[in-house]
């Protein structure tokens, strides 16, 4: 992408993506935590 000037790089979107992935991790954790609480093994 030679024509891309450094100022035009989508840096904000990269941050948004990390926020998204963090939400993904938190939501997954909460659901598995709840599952482990209601469905104990042994």
């Amino acid at each position, binding site marked *: *992408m030679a024509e*891309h000037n450094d*100022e*035009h*790089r*989508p*840096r*904000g*979107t990269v*941050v*948004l*993506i990390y926020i*998204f992935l963090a*939400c*993904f991790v938190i*939501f*997954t954790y909460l*659901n*598995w935590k*709840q*599952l482990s609480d*209601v*469905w104990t093994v042994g």
Partner: protein
Amino acid sequence: MNWKFRVCPTTGLKVHDSAETLIQVNAVTAIVFLLVGGALALLMVLTRWQVVHILPADYFYRLLTLHGIAMLVAWIIFFEMAVLYFASAVLLSHRLAVPWLAWTQYILMLVGAAMVTVMVLMGKADVMFTSYIPLQAHHMYYLGVILFAVGAILGCIVFFATVTSAKVEGAYEGSLSLVTYGAAAAAIIAILTLAHGAIALIPTWLWALGVIPMMDPEAYILMFWGFGHSSQQINLCAMIAIWYLLGTLTVGSKPISEKYCRTAFLFYILFVLIPSEHHLLVDPGLSAAHKVWNTGYFMHLAILASMMHAFSVPAYVEVALRKKGYTKGLFGWLKEAPWGNPAFSSLVFSVVGFGFLGGISGVVYGTEQINIISHNTLRIPGHFHATVVIGTTMAFMGVTYYVLPLIFKREVAFPTAARWQPYIYGTGMTIFSVAMMFVGGFGVPRRHWDITAADAVFQLNYGPVVNIGLAITAIGGILAAIGGLMYCLIAVATLLIGKKIPQEA
């Protein structure tokens, strides 16, 4: 043959008159069903709000059935037909192939939707959207759904015929534009989906007529969800095609990498249909291998595709805005974005709601283990109202603000109300979806008139937090109903009293 075209003064696209009329009738019919479905939605939330509880049990289930059909099927698929004709004939500046077939599509879908609506309202089809066996509706209900599905298949055939004739007659060379490519993915998925609908519903129709003595409930569920969930993937593709279109129309952005976006559409075509399996995760008939294969391996390629799209749309909006000079800091471009343009704000709500709320919850709830605690709870409608309503419906609403001037040739009426509409609707639906998922986390069932089980031997008490959660859900729903009504009124007012835009022939 002489085809009648006009040139759009804004975009320079050649618009075939038959395509234009068909886009208009499909879009208007879609909005009528949105209005019907929205009114029913208001009754639903006012019933699930424990202290209001407005409808009696029989009307709740009856109108919930109609709400599902009007919104998830009629509003969305009528609008998708308009999108398919727009993405083929208008975007390729080509004539719509076989207009009579497109009219047959419209008439079949209209007759089918009307039959279904009448049957449900007469109380002869209190079977919910899924019509699971052994629940049996009047045979005319199934016939209505079948006619609707056949009509939609014809619409897809018209789309492919238009794209093929555009190629043969040299209307475009090389690859299809990205938006048309996305619409093609939607049409491919639609044909496969509707074929499953036919396999599920034609025997059911014969069963309701008494021709077939018995139906296998498991086989029905398998085939039904090949139709019922896959039809939401048609919405998904159409929605994403519209994201790209809205990005271009609102901020003049172009995809950073066409190959990247097309790869994501390719993943959809190949892998997005099999996650229908997650509706069967708690069913006893299928093996764990079938369930895990279909919801655990290939499905992730479809999820990857959704993330590719959901990341690329903000990226190319950001690049477009940075190129306009809004380069300050990480989010200076976001501050300077055209937030007053209802199409842009709808796009943002659609991308964020679909990705953060609908996408994340869908992946987690669709996992076999988590599905054990989320299946048939309010988490599920919370999830799909984020995907189908905040995602798809808001994308469709956003594009309407361009369809009105481009196809109906009128300036949008009440521009101030139009500016506010996506915020009211989007905020309402966000509150609604989040609160619903929250309440579902306590195990509150979906599709249930009385969660206290008042007449049962054992009483259930979910605690006050659930009652507050359901009240917040209802408040979000009411706010969304206001936003939805504003959208319908703005669209109707534009058609009736909107200022005409002069055209050249």
